[in-house]
């Protein structure tokens, strides 16, 4: 009996139910209802976001695979492809931080190796509530341990990431994970089923009752009863996935495989219907053949389980023995559970009896698409107003500087990244914490740089500009490593799309990404949308996270943030407008989250990004670091930290102020975009400045490296003169102090 309460439990509306009835020409049974509900959930169908995502630029000369497959792929030369995608695991990570984060890592790794790529690097973007809350520390420790526990075990280095702490994430942390893989470009594998009569194999862990309706959970808000949803979080087994990874890559070297897809969200339901739909085929499976680790499971439970580490493979008929031999080598059992059929139907049987029949196209391509109403949030105009009189904390620049260095958003993330194996596979040539993550591509001269960036405060104050700035920052970071950005993936974390204000934020953010990626020449090759990030009616800050992949032609020219020696010239590229809106300085020192985030001139951003990559490629510069959170002063300090005690003496020009703010504070801590600090051998200074002039990028030699202090003057007046050791101590212990007295 299907009633409204049952529909509600499935997260379906009455209209959606009627649509199912029209599609089938009859009422669905409960198994079919479950199948439709997960396939039409926000998580699987993108029903609220689809109309907006169509605007994203997805084409480019290097794009081999855009959105729609398990991951995107771009050409990196030498017959190779970089395969990458970012995905969220926000909801599970709040309910059970360790397993939530661990299975997030496991899921994105499967998306990469199902494309035929060897995963070579992981990055993550994390958001938590303020660290002084015990709950935040518990979630942070669990998430970090979970990411490490999975990545370390499977042997894929976690080479970088970012983390921020804002009150809006206290009840809804964000865990976004990016995986990068390398494949031969002519051997990319698709997640499609084709060839009538070809066998369909199930391989990996047994199916249990864990994670049933995980996709539906990820498509609803949280409330105080969310802890009851713990059974909807899956448990990860990185060892099983390591075996699957090696066995699948070995199988892909043969030509026995037609297509493969992992069973992620919506498990067997999603993998069977998506593979069939992509291939324009049908599929018939018998759930009684599915390996199960619990007894008495119903077809409904088997189809909806989100047990981890399971794969669905379509193999060429006649090649079964080869497949069996490879999986047996790895002590895995590949079980034939069905066949590819013509006719476009997903037919699910239980011991030969039909238990669910539905057109795959209806499940995958004909899910409802909503143009949800949008409205600019009322809070926006109020919070965008920023007046000099609001800045009441008059502490001198040096005190503000030290306060910024130890604030968790800026402080060294060593406490986190030392828990991640960031060196396994011996490709990591810019180590974690030292700049963008950079991995060399063995067998070639090349390397890939990856950065993930986003700023929820910017998103809250101006979603469109915040999204543009996220693209520009990620691109700038890979450029600082010496790379030319060649592709991007995005993870869009927002609140409940059924609220017009949230939908407006989402649409504006997509506009921002579209504008920035188009102008900077960086195609989006895939990504993930995570909506309903709300707890007890409080949405998170709009948080688009961008992962940008860049190509370095000569790996030995890769750069990090750190000064190499005393006596180098320091050059500031870009222009300082002293913009304080949305800055870390306003938040940490003035206690304000206000104003508009910095402006972004996309033409200047493009010129800067090209210049920095070219300076690195030509070997003209020794280090490069972008100015972001905390502005110029923090960026300069970060160039000196981890250098083994190489300080700096600089004199910068005062910013041209838009309002009468304190000149030193605005100049040193304002977060104007498109600025990079580079260090240069004095013999190369002239050539460096000439390149900048030719590229149309403002550049000024502002001082030199060396000494045991960080000395910063503004228009000749010293504003900060601080012992490097003291500054570095504050920065290095900024996170650790919250875990003091506990295990190191």
């Amino acid at each position, binding site marked *: 009996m299907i009633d409204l309460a049952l529909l509600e439990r499935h997260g379906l509306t009455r209209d959606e139910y009627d649509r199912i009835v029209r599609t089938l020409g009859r009422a669905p049974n409960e198994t079919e209802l479950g199948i439709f509900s997960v396939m039409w959930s926000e998580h699987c169908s993108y029903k609220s976001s689809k109309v907006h995502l169509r605007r994203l630029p997805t084409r480019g000369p290097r794009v081999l695979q855009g959105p729609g497959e398990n991951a995107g792929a771009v050409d990196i030369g030498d017959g190779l492809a970089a395969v990458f995608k970012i995905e969220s695991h926000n909801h599970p990570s709040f309910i059970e931080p360790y397993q939530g984060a661990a299975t997030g890592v496991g899921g994105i790794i499967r998306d990469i190796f199902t494309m035929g790529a060897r995963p070579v690097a992981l990055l993550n973007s994390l958001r938590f509530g303020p660290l002084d809350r015990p709950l935040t520390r518990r979630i942070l420790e669990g998430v970090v341990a979970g990411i490490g526990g999975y990545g*370390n*075990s499977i042997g894929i280095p976690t080479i970088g990431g970012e983390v921020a702490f804002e009150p809006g994430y206290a009840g809804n942390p964000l865990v976004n994970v990016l995986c990068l893989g390398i494949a031969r470009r002519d051997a990319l594998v698709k997640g499609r089923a084709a060839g009538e009569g070809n066998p369909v194999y199930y391989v990996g862990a047994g199916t249990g009752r864990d994670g049933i309706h995980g996709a539906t959970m990820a498509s609803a808000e949280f409330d105080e009863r969310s802890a009851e949803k713990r059974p909807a979080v899956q448990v990860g087994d990185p060892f099983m996935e390591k075996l699957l990874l090696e066995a699948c890559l070995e199988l892909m070297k043969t030509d026995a495989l037609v297509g493969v897809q992992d069973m992620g969200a919506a498990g067997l339901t999603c993998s069977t219907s998506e593979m069939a739909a992509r291939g324009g085929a049908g599929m018939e499976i018998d759930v009684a053949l599915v390996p199960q680790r619990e007894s008495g499971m119903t077809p409904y439970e088997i189809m909806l389980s989100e047990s981890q580490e399971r794969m669905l493979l379509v193999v060429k008929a006649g090649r079964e023995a080869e497949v069996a031999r490879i999986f047996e080598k790895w002590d895995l059992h590949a079980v034939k559970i069905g066949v590819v059929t013509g006719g476009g139907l997903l037919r699910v049987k239980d011991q030969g009896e039909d238990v669910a029949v539905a057109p795959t196209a209806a499940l995958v391509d004909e899910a409802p698409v909503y143009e949800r109403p949008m409205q600019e949030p009322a809070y926006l105009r109020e919070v965008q107003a920023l007046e000099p009189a609001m800045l009441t904390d008059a502490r001198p620049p040096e005190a503000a500087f030290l306060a910024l260095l130890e604030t968790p958003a800026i402080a060294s993330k060593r406490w986190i990244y030392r828990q*991640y*194996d960031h060196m396994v596979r011996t490709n*990591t040539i810019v180590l974690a914490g030292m700049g963008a993550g950079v991995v060399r591509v063995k067998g070639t001269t090349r390397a890939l740089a990856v950065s993930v960036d986003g700023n929820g405060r910017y998103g809250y104050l101006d979603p469109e500009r915040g999204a543009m700035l996220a693209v520009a920052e990620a691109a700038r970071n890979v450029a600082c490593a010496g790379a030319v950005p060649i592709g991007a993936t995005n993870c869009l974390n927002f609140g409940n799309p059924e609220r017009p204000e949230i939908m407006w934020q989402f649409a504006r953010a997509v506009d921002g990404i579209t504008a920035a990626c188009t102008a900077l020449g960086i195609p989006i090759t895939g990504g993930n949308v995570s909506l309903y990030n709300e707890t007890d009616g409080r949405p998170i800050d709009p948080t688009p996270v961008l992962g940008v992949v860049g190509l370095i032609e000569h790996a030995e020219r890769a750069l990090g943030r750190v000064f190499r020696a005393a006596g180098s010239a320091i050059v500031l590229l870009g222009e300082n407008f002293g913009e304080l809106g949305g800055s870390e300085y306003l938040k940490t020192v003035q206690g304000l989250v206000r104003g508009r985030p910095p402006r972004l001139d996309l033409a200047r951003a493009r010129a800067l990004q090209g210049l920095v990559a070219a300076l690195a490629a030509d070997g003209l510069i020794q280090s490069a670091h972008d100015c972001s959170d905390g502005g110029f002063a923090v960026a300069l300090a970060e160039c000196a930290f981890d250098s083994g005690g190489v300080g700096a003496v600089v004199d910068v020009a005062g910013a041209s102020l838009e309002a009468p703010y304190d000149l030193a504070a605005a100049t040193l801590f304002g977060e104007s975009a498109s600025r990079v600090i580079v260090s240069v051998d004095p013999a190369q200074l002239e050539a460096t400045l000439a390149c900048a002039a030719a590229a149309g990028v403002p550049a000024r030699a502002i001082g030199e490296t060396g000494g045991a202090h960080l000395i910063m003057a503004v228009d000749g007046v010293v504003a900060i003169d601080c012992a490097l050791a003291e500054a570095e101590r504050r920065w290095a212990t900024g996170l650790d102090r919250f875990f003091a007295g506990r*295990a190191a």
Partner: protein
Amino acid sequence: MRFAVVVFPGSNCDHDAYHAVKHVLGAEAAFVWHKDTDLAGADVVILPGGFSHGDYLRTGAIARFSPVMASVAAFAAAGGPVIGICNGFQILLEAGMLPGAMLRNRGLKFLCEHVHLRVERTDTPFTALCSEGQVLRLPIAHGDGNYYAAPAVLAALEAEGRVIFRYAGPDGRVSDAGNPNGSLNNIAGICNEARNVVGLMPHPERACEAALGSADGLVVFRSVVASLAGKGALRAVAREA
């Protein structure tokens, strides 16, 4: 000169060891699957790092039962040089080829970072080209690297000069500050009585190229090549290094 790199299910530094000895050192290398018993004519056996069998039950506890381990034990008994790195060291402990056990790091967290090691002995095939007291900068990456042995065993190890590497500061001074995991006597690596089987927690194979942040680990593999080539050749390799 041929290195065998044993691959257990869950090994994940197998490719790194292979790369280091084959592409950096220029020796021959072959992978040996854990179910095989033929060591492929190897002159040196490497048990690489990773999470064999997921480290389930206990680190190295299941891998020691792999068919290949009987061959490795026979190879070692015949005097063949064997090195266990990280998980490989843990497997050698579980197999009883080296004494002691690994506990969780004292901070209870997995740690990946560069540490400094002092070379205590140069009379093993894997340290022959080192000088005593030499400081090597190598990465660690483990959660269970806190070396423990019963007091009598520990005393014997020390008395017999079987502690090969100790965690130290950059200046080579052995102190608690340089001990990342709580290992007794700052022990990072030991050898067996015959001195041909060596286990260490840090990863020399991850430190064979300057591009990776340190090339200090290469001496470990050069040493075994030199040792096997005999004393005359040893000096030649030393000059080359």
